[in-house]
């Protein structure tokens, strides 16, 4: 697979999310890649849009094997989740376990009217009945590959693709 151009995909993603924004919509980025995306989407989608960040460390299903990540960041949901249409944003969709954790956490803040999942890349490899409604790129990567979104100092995005060791 050729490495996708992250900036082009970002524009595609923004175009696809735009029509979903209505009154009562909020966007929530998943730490860290999804939070970076949400950060740059905000001026495009509307600066007044309610927004937040989730760090799903406390909801992961592999805590017993891996323990707590040493760089846990506080989740910040500074708006009332109750009855909101939430667009959950992440960089790479893989097994679906992160999204399950994120949804569990969101429901501890309240009962949203709906949750839509928007990701930059759907890399295949789903292990749960969860899938993104919006993706800028769908592909099929082997389990041995690790596709990661990173950010340059100037805020622009790029991907790395590595072999898992």
């Amino acid at each position, binding site marked *: 697979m050729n490495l996708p151009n992250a900036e082009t995909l970002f524009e595609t993603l923004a175009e696809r999310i735009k029509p979903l924004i209505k009154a009562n919509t909020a966007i929530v980025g998943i730490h860290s890649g999804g939070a970076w995306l949400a950060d740059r989407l905000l001026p495009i989608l509307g600066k007044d849009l309610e927004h937040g960040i989730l760090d799903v460390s406390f909801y992961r299903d592999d805590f017993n094997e891996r323990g707590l990540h*040493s760089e*846990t960041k506080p989740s910040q949901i500074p708006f009332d989740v109750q009855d909101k249409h939430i667009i959950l944003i992440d960089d790479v969709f893989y097994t679906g376990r992160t999204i399950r954790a994120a949804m569990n956490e969101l429901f501890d803040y309240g009962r949203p009217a709906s949750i839509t999942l928007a990701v930059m890349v759907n890399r295949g490899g789903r292990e749960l009945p969860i899938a993104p409604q919006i993706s800028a790129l769908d592909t099929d990567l082997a389990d041995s590959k690790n596709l990661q979104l990173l950010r340059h100092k100037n805020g622009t995005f790029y991907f790395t693709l590595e072999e898992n060791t």
Partner: protein
Amino acid sequence: MQNPQLTNDGELKHLLSIEGLPKRILNQILDTAESFVGVAEREVKKVPLLRGKTVCNLFFENSTRTRTTFEIAAKRLSADVITLNVSTSSQSKGETILDTIDNLTAMHADMFVVRHAQSGAAHMIAKHVAPHISVINAGDGRHAHPTQGLLDVFTIRKYKPDMHNLRVAIVGDILHSRVARSEIHALTTLGVPEVRVIAPKTLLPQDVEKLGVHVYHDMNEGLKDVDVVMMLRLQNERMAGAMLPSSQEYFKTYGLTPEKLVLARPDAIVMHPGPMNRGVEIDSAVADGSQSVILPQVTYGIAVRMAVMSILAGN
């Protein structure tokens, strides 16, 4: 010698004392606690991290605040919590501590939170338990009270984020205080440049300077320009030893009044680990005043204990 609190990879396995813990681990606990503060402000004040785990609070010595906040912390992590006031249970029938521990282990306990009047009790239990079990020291004799030390530095960091530029004064009965010892180790490890202790000679341990603190006997000198005033409880139960003339006399010399507090920096915060003796070590006008962060200390104590428990359970 291997630190009994750490795994072979240098991760926290038991929390027994702040002494000897690297700055990296203290910061990991404080940063994780930061994430737990928000949990208490949500609709559902719970996360599923310790679901299916059993935490045993073993209090061989009385405590209300510490016991309650450990219990709340474990419950907010979704653990099942058993609190035993052992002073009123089988110990009084003659069972040894380690037998009590073995029995609770046979009931599949995963974590012990231990308070004991004897210094070293938590260490002894940590050495004894099976490898999958973690032990948290919730206060042992005069030795250590690490989660109190941690919640105190967490509170300081909240109000005074630049720890490398602080003057902190700890006032009162340093000699009998496990809290003071834990605070001093936490503050110096985190790089607070000036830690003062203010107390009469009779309430200071010998060689206290070796802990890296500046010693003052006069409050008017010691409080000058400090950013944080940490009051300690005068342990009335030790007054019998005639270490002090009277509690009124003590209040006159070492009690924190509004008049003495003006010597500190105008934005100084006032802390107390509780329980307070109003009119003995602290004046009500200070305890309830605008510079007091005594109740936030209690609130942050829950987040800090959640952080410690979840880090231990994951290592």
